[in-house]
């Protein structure tokens, strides 16, 4: 048995259902109820408009640093929409739309980016971890949750999101390896938006795809057109189905593009040219889904306009409510509220001290 090729049973596929012009491959088209399709569309639109508004609020100094998601609506919503409410989600920091789909309030989103810890609150019935900034670290939590689900024999799954850059971190590796070994019901969704701040995918890894990274862990990887919500949804539903039936994890690579800034602190003109952005504009996930729905007769032209107006009002309401909340909040002792189940005597004294210093500061500032 000398020099001989090793055989692989792994299969890697690329999935695309809706092309850039909204033409559908009917052999692959998923059968989804019309109201669900419309709901997806409306959320995508909402995502885009909310993003624009947040950018706006940031530019006006009403919120702090914010990571826009424009261009990635299909990729994150397609995956999250395939989950049940009892499933869990562990997002990175660019899944604002997926979070809102899952029940996060606009108010919390805005509060969080306006610098209020209260915005981190996770709504009662939402089984999601708060967004995670330390890149890739959340992938392990999803695995732990999935292992716990398996132990508890619930029929639920965990889904975690991360970027292309995140695949370079050790935690990504440990997460996939644990998931493989323990056959945990977890779905790894990579939003491969081609960039990690200024670092293009080609400098991130020499791997031709992210999907093939699954091979090292003994479970399937699949690459999908991440701007095609039908493809993302289908691949996710299939992976969730596998996980639910005890067949273990899947890695899904969504090929998409970060159309905007990395965050509002970023200046992409330093590192990428507008040509690429233009190319990806033509692949817009919302436009092609709209075309599909129009062609299919599910969506009427005037409905789009109606959605736009409703969404505008909703967002306006959200912004107003959050700004009202900000005025009501603000007592600094809340900082100490969720440090431990119970504050130690030492921390209780520190809270007193902090409040006293704060009050004295306020007084002095008033008196100049």
């Amino acid at each position, binding site marked *: 048995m000398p020099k001989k090729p090793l055989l692989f049973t792994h299969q890697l596929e690329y999935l695309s259902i809706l092309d850039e012009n909204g033409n559908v491959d009917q052999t692959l088209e998923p059968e989804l109820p019309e109201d669900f399709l419309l709901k997806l569309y409306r959320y995508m639109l909402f995502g885009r408009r909310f993003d624009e508004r947040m950018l706006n609020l940031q530019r006006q100094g009403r919120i702090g640093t914010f990571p826009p998601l424009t261009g990635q609506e299909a990729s994150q919503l397609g995956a999250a929409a395939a989950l049940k409410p009892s499933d*869990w989600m*562990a997002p990175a920091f660019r899944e604002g739309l997926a979070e809102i789909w899952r029940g996060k309030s606009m108010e919390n989103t805005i509060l969080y980016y306006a610098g209020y*810890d*209260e915005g*981190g*609150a*996770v709504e009662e019935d939402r089984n999601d*971890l*708060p967004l*995670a900034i*330390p890149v890739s*670290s959340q*992938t*392990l*939590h*999803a*695995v*732990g*949750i*999935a*292992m*716990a*689900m398996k*132990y*508890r024999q619930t029929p639920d799954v*965990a889904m975690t999101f991360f970027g292309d850059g995140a695949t370079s971190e*050790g*935690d990504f590796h*440990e*997460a996939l*390896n*644990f998931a493989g*070994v*323990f056959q945990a019901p977890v779905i790894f969704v990579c939003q491969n938006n081609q960039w990690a701040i200024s670092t293009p995918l080609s400098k991130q890894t020499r791997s031709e795809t992210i999907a093939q990274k699954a091979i090292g862990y003994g479970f399937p990887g699949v690459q999908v057109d991440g701007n095609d919500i039908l493809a993302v949804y289908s691949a996710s539903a299939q992976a969730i189905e596998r996980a639910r039936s005890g067949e273990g994890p899947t890695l899904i690579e969504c090929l998409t593009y970060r159309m905007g800034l990395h965050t509002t602190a970023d200046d992409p003109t330093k590192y990428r040219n507008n040509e690429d952005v233009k190319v990806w504009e033509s692949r817009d996930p919302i436009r092609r889904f709209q075309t599909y729905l129009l062609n299919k007769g599910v969506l009427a032209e005037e409905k789009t306009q109606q959605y736009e107006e409703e969404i505008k009002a909703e967002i306006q309401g959200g912004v107003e409510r959050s700004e009202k909340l900000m005025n009501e909040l603000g007592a600094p002792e809340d900082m100490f*509220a*969720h*440090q*431990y*189940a119970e504050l*130690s*005597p*030492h*921390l209780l004294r520190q809270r007193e001290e902090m409040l006293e210093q704060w009050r004295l500061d306020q007084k002095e500032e008033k008196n100049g």
Partner: protein
Amino acid sequence: MAKLTMVQALNLALRQEMEKDDRVMLLGEDVGVDGGVFRVTDGLIDIFGAERVIDTPLAESGIVGAAIGMAVYGLRPVCEIQFSGFTYFNFHQLESHAARLRHRSQGKYHVPMVLRAPYGGGVRALEHHSESREVYYAHTPGLKMVIPSGPRNSRALMVSAIRDPDPVIFFEPKALYRAFREEVPEEEETLPLGVPVKVREGGDVTLVAYGAMIPLSLDAAEVLKAKHGIEVEVFDLLTLSPLDDTLITESVRKTGHAVVVHEAHRSFGPGAEIMARLMEEAFFYLEAPVKRVTGYDIVYPLFAREKAYMPNAMRIVRAVRETLAS
């Protein structure tokens, strides 16, 4: 009551908690079939199965990250990191998540996990196997940092740590794993986290220590009394963070003298915080500067020279006498 080593006492704590509460899970490298490299989890896989006593791949961040997920989901994972010197591989998971999820989710989630790790020197171990870096954890808000000093309190503290709703870093002084036995009751016993205990009464000087330094401190106290007529009051911190200095401050107000003992490096070490607290709370009662008997600010040496590095009873005796003389 059985006379148990610390290893056996910890095993008892884990077994009983697992029997009582099916949320309690063990995970780590070699904790299952092998029973842990120090045998703390010995036999538990036979009782509770591989679903609850989980041999993991060799990945500390994986272990802690997965444990965080389990804890958030409602389980009570107890994970073992094989030696405290390898907890740096998972430091980001502790700092960024275990310590913060309660705050970050505004109380929706919490992380009732325990991270166990053998720590400390004096056992002729390999490189990276003798460090005492409890300060890293004690300085990290959101964590609790617990260190027992004997079979009985290790059992009681472990039970409390498992039941605690917040993440507990539980460092086990490996030098004491089998150093002596104590009566450990079969019935449940707990000790509150965050409360030091007075382990010896005395009026002349206050000695503050924890972990493997406790037996040494008690030895030193004996010598000081027998040879020099000095009455030493000894405190065992048990919890480094949250640190409650009330009893210690009170004692120093009485004795006017104090010595702090730890294996950890001196600079920016645990002793500095004790001294700072005493400065803040007992300054006007202090008759002499508080002294520290500690490890030095160097990489822990290989074992041939560890005796010169580690505090011992003789060094403690000298320090106490110097404090009283100054």
